[in-house]
């Protein structure tokens, strides 16, 4: 009896390994929720599984460079030179928005208006109270208290940090010179918290705090999201429509190596801090089948994953960009004989 069960078990597991493939990838934590949703759906439909380790963008780049995974994922794109040096290609798979959240007693939800310069000065430690002239001028209708401002930031290296500092460095030269952009920066003032959830809870707990999180976390924690002045000079409210607007204006066509950070995009309704999460793959792959399986998964996600993404407050890539990715980027991924792995 036991023998029979064991034999049946071995037979099925052998059969399973023969037919179903597991796609391996590692990297950014920001898109992890949507990737795992997609993986579930994809496995139900095709039987192929995804083994994605959310170890952070830096780790994702390390692993794909070393070739231990089929694809890497990063919130910060690699520059065209870096890509060329490591024989990699990258494309944006999903987008999301970063929003400033505030906790000031007496200020209603969504009432506070900020612009990039003011936000940069707050995080530089130059603006220290909420009734500072710079903030009052942007908010003539809001009665601001003289509460001290406590900026809350990410203590560890993160893609969210990269997007936020990339935006602030664009709109404030002082910020660019003093602090600079990057996944891990030194903030002169305020409190460092771990992960999006940590920032959200600190902002919740401190009167006078301001922080920045992926929009999903602001919603989950019921935080007060400030309006932002965009490049066109309009104040916009964070939401999928303004994120979409920013994404729609992104000029992927002319981005060399798809190096594009979607902060401070033009457009009347564009939310200023939007970012894409990127997938990295080798241009010449040893295991053409594994690469093909991975591309089939991403193709499936582009075609069938939009609803899951919007449900989780992500923004799917527009169809035009998806076609461009398949035509221009995926065609560069070749097996050892020089044949393209992805055949439309």
């Amino acid at each position, binding site marked *: 009896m036991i023998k029979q069960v064991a034999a049946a078990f071995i037979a099925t597991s052998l059969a399973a390994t023969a037919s179903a493939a597991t796609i391996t990838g590692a990297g950014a934590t920001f898109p992890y929720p949507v990737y795992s949703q997609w993986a579930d759906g994809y496995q139900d439909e095709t039987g192929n599984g995804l083994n994605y380790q959310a*170890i952070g963008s830096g780790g994702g780049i390390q692993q794909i460079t070393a070739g231990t995974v089929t694809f890497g994922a990063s919130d910060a794109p690699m520059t065209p030179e870096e890509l060329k040096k490591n024989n990699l290609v990258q494309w944006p798979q999903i987008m999301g928005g970063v929003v400033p959240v505030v906790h000031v007693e007496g200020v209603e939800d969504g009432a506070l208006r900020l612009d990039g310069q003011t936000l940069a000065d707050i995080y530089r430690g130059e603006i220290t109270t909420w009734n500072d002239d710079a903030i009052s001028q942007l908010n003539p209708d809001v009665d601001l208290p003289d509460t001290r401002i406590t900026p809350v930031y990410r203590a560890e290296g993160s893609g969210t940090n990269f997007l936020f500092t990339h935006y602030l460095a664009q709109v404030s030269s002082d910020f660019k010179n003093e602090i600079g952009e990057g996944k891990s920066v*030194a903030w002169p003032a*305020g409190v460092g918290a771990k992960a999006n959830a940590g920032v959200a809870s600190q902002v919740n*707990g401190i009167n006078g705090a301001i922080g920045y999180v992926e929009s999903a976390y602001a919603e989950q924690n019921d935080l007060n999201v400030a309006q932002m002045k965009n490049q066109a000079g309009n104040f916009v409210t964070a939401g999928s429509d303004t994120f979409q607007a920013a994404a729609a204006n992104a000029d992927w066509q002319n981005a060399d190596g798809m190096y594009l950070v979607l902060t401070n995009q033009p457009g009347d309704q564009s939310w200023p801090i939007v970012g894409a999460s990127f997938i990295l793959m080798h241009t010449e792959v040893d295991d053409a089948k594994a690469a093909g399986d991975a591309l089939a998964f991403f193709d499936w996600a582009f075609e069938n994953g939009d609803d899951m993404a919007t449900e989780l407050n992500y923004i799917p890539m527009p169809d035009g960009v998806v076609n461009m990715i398949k035509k221009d980027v995926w065609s560069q991924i070749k097996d050892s004989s020089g044949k393209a792995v992805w055949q439309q």
Partner: protein
Amino acid sequence: MTTGSSSVTPQAAEGDRMQKLSASARERTALKRNGIIDRIFELGTRSSALLVLVLLGTITGSLVIAGWPALQQLGLSFFTGDRWAANVENFGALPAIYGTLVTSLIAIAIAVPVSLGIAIFLTELCPPKLRRTIGTMVELLAGVPSIIYGMWGMEVLAPFLQSHFPSVFPAGTGLTTAGLILAIMIIPFITAVTRDVMNTVPSIMRESAYGLGCTTWEVVRHVIFPSVKAGMLGGVILGLGRALGETMAVTFVIGNNLFLNATVTGQGTSIAALIANQFSEADGLQRSALLLLGLVLFLITFAVLALARFMLNRINQRAPS
């Protein structure tokens, strides 16, 4: 029992002894076997002790090797730089070293008098019924995992400080908050050691002093205290060692600011917290710099322990017992 004269060989002497002990052949093999077991036991314990040395050497060695590129590239600026900004490859260890030392000193400054108070109360003043209960509770406090202290610090202590002393703790977190948490964490260690050494003072000394008309304070100050000084110092060092290296609880409440703020209540970082926050995403120079920082923490802890040993020796020399 007599041994053979100097002219006979040791083996002969041994056989002679056995004979005199009138050991049978079986007993002799048993004795021999015991000798082998003893030998194995000695070898086992010796290699265990050597293993510690080897481990220590390997850890130090690998930290030096891994941190070498950073030391070479950054040089002295690693120790004098006032900010840790990975994005511009500006790695100054001063904020982390400052935070580590300040939080540990705050912790010691609070924990030593409190622990001393608890220990004196438990050994001298406490009714015997309560003694056991309080003693066990203090020991239980030592068993609470550090992450629990971290969560408590973030969810309870920091908001409390912020709402009651908003001018001193605008955000609730900071070096002092971390120092407070560390103090609570090391109090049970220092208390337990101090209480144990106080219990070793013979009761005849106590009773004599009381008989001479001493007050409780005088007994503690002039009779008990001088004879337990060295042991207490050991407890303090044990606590300090834990405070210097504590990671999770500190990361939660220290504020994680990577600039050197020469404040005591403001936000800062410690070596352990900085490594915990950045190591998983680090590569290249940043990784090497973080490992070098680990070496610095290692050396600080080592220096503290060496200093403690030195002080213990001096105390022992001054008051030979």
